């Protein structure tokens, strides 16, 4: 098992790390949270860096890399709990690049490269992760699809121009491209979610009618799942690094009973366990990124689910301990530990938690 990092990927990593430190420190994210608005200028700068087109073929104006090249960017973003539509946009771009017709690619990909945002709606009110439980139906008639159903946890859809949604055509789950301009006013509602840096919406699709040419090729839902999970794991890896650093800094400076609290083994030792889990997670993550670059095969699926399970476990633990180890301050809204904990819960339960991933790994590894 080897891990490699191409020159482009290394460059992306270095750029992303310094970009988020400079451009979106946590104070900025808190401002965005409190006014509830989308940070357009931050997004614009990311677009200018070419990040909206990382995984779009050069032919359509992108960098022509794979979605795994987004990992360093999303990881760096996670470190500072930045909220950004880069994940959904990259997943959508990857799906259109891999499963779109030439016509679809020509229409949508150049728009994404230029900075139009794509959101994704795969989850529904039943909260199931497995797309077998998708209840939205697309019925083929009159040369188009008539949609019935609702999608939840669709991030930044109010600012996006595209949204990709899953729906069943007979028994098969397909993915459809919808222009947000087609969705009538009033059918998009803001949702209250645990991670306040995330701008989440519910969309009511009932009555929407879209063209026959707005469906992606069959099999796209598998890539949708794996690529979302990979970026989710990247975000968690960054989150664990960030919250580890936050807590270590506190433990080095805060005193109790006349000693620096980091000298107490009941705090020091769990921090070491968190460090180890963070190192393991990053290793799983970059290996999974390597694997996915050769396609969403079984080895990639195993690696991605392992990264996801490790991430959910590590981030949940690290952020829980961060609150506890910050003591009274940790219990306040002002302490950044809560931002990481809320992000941890968001990531854990959006992608499918560690228990779910391990259940799927049982079949992949043991049978």
């Amino acid at each position, binding site marked *: 098992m080897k891990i490699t990092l191409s020159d482009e990927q290394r460059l992306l990593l270095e750029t992303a790390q310094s970009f988020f430190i400079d451009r979106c420190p946590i104070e900025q994210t808190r401002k965005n949270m409190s006014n509830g608005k989308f940070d357009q200028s931050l997004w614009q700068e990311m677009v200018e860096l070419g990040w909206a087109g990382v995984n779009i073929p050069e032919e359509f104006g992108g960098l022509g890399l794979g979605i795994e090249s987004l990992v360093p960017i999303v990881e760096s973003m996670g470190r500072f709990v930045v909220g950004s539509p880069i994940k959904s946009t990259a997943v959508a771009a990857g799906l259109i690049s891999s499963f779109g017709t030439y016509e679809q690619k020509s229409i949508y990909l150049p728009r994404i490269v230029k900075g139009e945002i794509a959101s994704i709606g795969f989850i529904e009110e039943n909260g199931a992760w497995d797309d077998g439980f998708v209840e939205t139906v697309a019925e083929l008639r009159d040369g188009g699809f008539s949609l019935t159903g609702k999608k939840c946890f669709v991030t930044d859809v109010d600012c996006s121009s595209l949204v990709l949604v899953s729906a069943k055509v007979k028994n098969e789950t397909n993915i459809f491209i919808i222009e947000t301009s087609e969705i009538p006013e009033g059918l998009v509602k803001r949702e209250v979610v645990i991670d306040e840096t995330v701008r989440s919406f519910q969309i009511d699709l009932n009555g929407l009618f879209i063209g026959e040419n707005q469906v992606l090729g069959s099999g796209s839902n598998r890539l949708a799942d794996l690529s979302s999970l990979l970026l989710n794991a990247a975000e968690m890896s960054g989150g664990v690094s960030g919250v580890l650093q936050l807590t270590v800094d506190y433990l080095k400076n805060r005193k*109790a009973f006349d000693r620096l609290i980091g000298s107490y083994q009941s705090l020091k030792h769990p921090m070491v366990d968190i460090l180890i889990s963070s190192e393991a997670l990053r290793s799983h993550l970059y290996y999974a990124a390597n694997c996915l670059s050769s396609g969403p095969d079984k080895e990639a699926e195993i690696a991605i689910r392992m990264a996801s399970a490790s991430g959910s476990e590590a981030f949940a633990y690290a952020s829980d301990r961060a609150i506890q180890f910050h003591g009274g301050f940790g219990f306040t809204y002002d302490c950044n530990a809560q931002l990481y904990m809320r992000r941890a819960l968001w990531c854990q339960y959006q992608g499918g938690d560690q228990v779910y991933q391990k259940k799927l790994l049982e079949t992949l590894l043991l049978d």
Partner: protein
Amino acid sequence: MSDVARIEIEEFREEVRNWFTENKPQDPGFLLPETFMEVGTDEQFEFLRDWQRKVYEAGYIGISWPKDYGGGGRPQIFQDIATREMVTQRVPFMPNTIGLNWAGPLILKVGTEENKRKYIKNILSAEDIWCQGFSEPEAGSDLGNTRCSARRDGDDYIINGSKIWTSLGTYAKYMILLARTSKEKSSKYAGLSFFLAPMGVDGIDPEPIQKLTGEYGFCQTFFDDARIPADCLMGEEGDGWKTAMITLTFERGASGGQAGGTSMMELNAYDVLELARRVRRNGKLAIEDTYVREKLVSFLIEFRGNQLMSAREKVPGLTGDWPGAVSLSGKLRNTELRRRLTQFSLSLMGANAARFVSENSVDGGKWQRSYLNSFSATIGGGTSEIQHNIVGERVLGLPKD
């Protein structure tokens, strides 16, 4: 127990059950807090204060407190029955927790006759809300670091400094206050004094603190040359540490004397089991998931273990090799269990676990909020790490750090 007593008890049990069945409040239409530390809005507060007053007037709290001061003057067993019924019927908790469980028992134990006449009845009726002023922003869990000062000036003390984690600070009429009256003492625990301080004087300013949930419920209380009468001092100057330690034994549940009633909504393994029966995790009922089942059983065992510990402690001959083990570990066991249980409860809901307080959330988002709030108890009143030290040193006799 005599037959007469037995019959009296049975009749009381019946009476209490009927009263709470009939008088249990309706759903107020907003999400109630789950502990007294989480009262964040006026409507929550008024609702709970009214409820406490009603329960007191019906005679179901303070039952074992002396009649002379407004209590019921009956044996403890009657209070236990009434409290148990409140738990069983899951009625709202008594908001004046500091008064009922800390200040009240303390005043009854070491207060003057005048203190008792002045404070006890209004604690029970929730007429006077009490808060607590022990912790300070820079002191962490170590009360020895108290810096808030009280300087004698004629018939007054002048208070300066600040206290943190004052629950109900904006509603409270009185505070049990630990302050430093002298800096010249040898030990940092000497030089502390204990006051029953009025909150309504100039220079005392409770400022609400925003919690990690985004809600309010605690204050930081600032003292800026606040003058309180010298007779607010409890005991002698310099006795503060001793008095605070007595107070803490009430908090840890290590001694009796509390007025009764609950200070938080019971939330136990059976509640999570009930949740698992009605919510879906990845498309099917959570209770059908093999992982959920295994965890539920583990939590049920742990929860019942906690209940049975209290039962066993009462049996002479089975009190165990380690006196104090059960009572001194109570806070640690219960608060850590609640943290893990509420954290686990989220996993029952699939992707909907990522919601927060809103109408789209399972039970209005109460479970997410409970998990975040659970840290108030694993941190406040001595962190779980400190609780481990207390049990390790006082019960097992292991050496200090």
